[in-house]
């Protein structure tokens, strides 16, 4: 009995001591379930960033140097479970701050917990407009605005010769993709392009033959698709088997990700997309050196190439560390205020949040050429040559 009491006291003391020296982050991420293949980017990102920061001494809170700990739970791609887990992380595990899940609909539900509890959450998984129009003060995001995703692509189209005239816009019916479509419509109008097909489809659709037939009969020069990886994969394969060859097609997901390109093999070539992040040496970082070194280290550690999801996850952790150091404390309110004011360079690019809590980064247009991701257009100029028009399927 005495032994148990002593053990209890010792454990209490140890946790008190440990607690005094660590800053704990909590996150509920999709490690199993239908979107797990993207969810794992976030787990790996959070782990990697925290590991690197701890190795460099941790985070400076006022006058003490503290280590960072992470409590990560698997929400099995179930939004309702994710919400309960965030509640639990705050009330039972007593984490200091929250890191976000993947996907806008998860962020929409989970962020309410953070807001209700007045604890800051920085997420790199959701970009839809809804997240930022609720007037929430405690939510910050490292993914740039959904409405601008096709921005650089449309700018590039205007500079092509001969310029394309007709566009088909397809989008899934979830929060993020609807936001993308809304923004894209404005951009297309401004660029003077004619939309011959503007169609919403159900998330997780597997048959695109009707849409593809309509694209073919509508003679669209360019096809823009805002959807999920499985849909885009089906779209491309069915485009091939139905012989639908637009001059250019661009997708909001898939193109930057390694397993997507691997699943399609040679059929991935020619597909365009966008990314707010490329592993270039011009992005310097306090802990990782630069983005290229980061990508190499990531590949060595995890066995696959990182993409912008991974970088956005790392950015979330770095934003917190920066804010905590600026605030000089782990008080949620003070850190929240510090987050609103952060401005620093990182492996992800320049991190600063606008007054709604969202980061602002330009998208870079990319294209898959010879099984590699090639940056094509950013800002006002072409970086590399775009393969345009795409040769018809039977001639590839």
């Amino acid at each position, binding site marked *: 009995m005495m032994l148990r009491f002593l053990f209890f006291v010792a454990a209490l003391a140890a946790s008190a001591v440990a607690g005094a020296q660590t800053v704990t982050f909590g996150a509920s991420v999709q490690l*199993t*379930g*239908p*979107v*797990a*293949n993207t*969810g*794992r980017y976030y787990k790996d990102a959070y782990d990697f960033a925290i590991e690197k920061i701890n190795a460099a001494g941790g985070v400076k809170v006022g006058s003490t140097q503290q280590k960072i700990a992470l409590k990560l739970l698997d929400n099995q791609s179930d939004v309702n479970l994710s919400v309960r887990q965030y509640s639990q992380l705050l009330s039972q595990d007593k984490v200091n701050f929250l890191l976000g899940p993947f996907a806008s609909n998860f962020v929409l539900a989970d962020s309410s917990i953070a807001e209700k509890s007045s604890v800051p959450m920085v997420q790199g998984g959701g970009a839809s407009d809804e997240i930022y129009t609720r007037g929430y003060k405690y939510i910050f995001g490292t993914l740039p605005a959904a409405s601008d995703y096709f921005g650089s692509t449309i700018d590039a189209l205007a500079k092509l010769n001969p310029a394309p005239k007709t566009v088909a816009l397809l989008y899934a*019916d979830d929060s993020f993709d609807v936001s993308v479509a809304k923004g894209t419509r404005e951009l297309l109008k401004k660029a003077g392009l004619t939309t011959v097909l503007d*169609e*919403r*489809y*159900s998330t*997780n*659709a*597997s*048959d695109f*033959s*009707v*849409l593809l*037939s*309509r694209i*073919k*009969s509508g003679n669209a020069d360019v096809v823009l698709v805002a959807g999920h*990886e*499985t849909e885009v*994969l*089906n779209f491309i*394969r*069915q485009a*091939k*088997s*139905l*012989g639908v060859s637009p001059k250019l097609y661009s997708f909001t997901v898939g193109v930057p990700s390694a*397993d997507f390109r691997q*699943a*399609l*093999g040679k*059929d991935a070539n020619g597909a365009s997309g966008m990314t707010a992040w490329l592993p270039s040496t011009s992005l310097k970082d306090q802990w990782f050196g630069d983005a290229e070194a980061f990508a190499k280290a990531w590949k060595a550690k995890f066995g696959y190439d990182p993409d912008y999801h991974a970088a956005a996850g790392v950015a979330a952790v770095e934003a917190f560390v920066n804010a905590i150091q600026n605030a000089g404390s782990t008080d949620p309110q003070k850190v929240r205020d510090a987050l609103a004011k952060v401005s620093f360079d990182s492996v992800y690019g320049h991190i600063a949040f606008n007054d709604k809590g969202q980061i602002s980064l330009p998208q870079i247009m990319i294209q898959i050429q010879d099984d590699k991701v090639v940056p094509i257009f950013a800002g006002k100029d072409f970086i590399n040559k775009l393969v345009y028009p795409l040769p018809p*399927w039977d001639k590839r």
Partner: protein
Amino acid sequence: MELLAQVLVSGVLLGGLYALMALGLALVWGVLNIVNLSHGALIMLGAYTSYFLFTVWHIDPFVTLPITAVVLFIVGYAIERGILNFVIRGPMFNTLLITFGIEVILTYLAQLWFSADFRAINPTYAGANFAIAGITIPTVQVLVFAIALGLTIAMWLFLLHTRIGRGIRASAQNLVAARLYGVDPKRIYALTFGLGAALAGVTGGLYGTVSQINPYIGGPLTAKSFAIAIIGGLDNPLGVIVGGLVLGIVESLTALYFGSTYRDVASFGVLLLVLILRPSGLLGRTA
């Protein structure tokens, strides 16, 4: 007009895949009265089996089909003998619940062994097509349609004209009498379920060639298979062809004239109509 013709052709070919999906389920349900909620998971396992045979041993996907069929037959047989056997004579509701439990377990194991990454079976001819009168017809889908038709007819003949087939039907109708005639019910049930699983496996192998594979494709496929089986009618294996075609065409036309987001409304709407107006299905005998 050409667009409509193309869409109709796509709908018919989709119907072929749908028919194949539902065949295994309809067999087990119509004959054994087992409602198998893990049917989609078996399709998923079949897809992975063909995928690994293709990727690791470079066997042509169509050639992997018989192997996948055998593998899934064994899996189905084991599930029936090992788990389902214990609840068959209970209320039929219990088989619904238990097969749901099996589905959860199989999905979890698939995620554990194969990870959530998606795969696709991508032989060089995956995107091949040919044109007739200005309509593009994907080659693989035509083959799927042919296989679906062939297997359905083979199943029909099997049930009607072979000894084992008649034994299966006899057990379904009257177990006691069948026993008196020397039928071993345990073997027959396990065999039938194994056949259903084998058919699911073949579907999976073909599905992986036209779409993509991940551990979670099972659920929606089960739901679709139910709709197809009921619309066609469970009394007659040929019903799945009717069910599949009806659904494939209805979905495609709905997508063309109303919008792609209304596909599910249409397909489940047809299901409900059939259930309310003619529950035995389009090819079923009205009781």
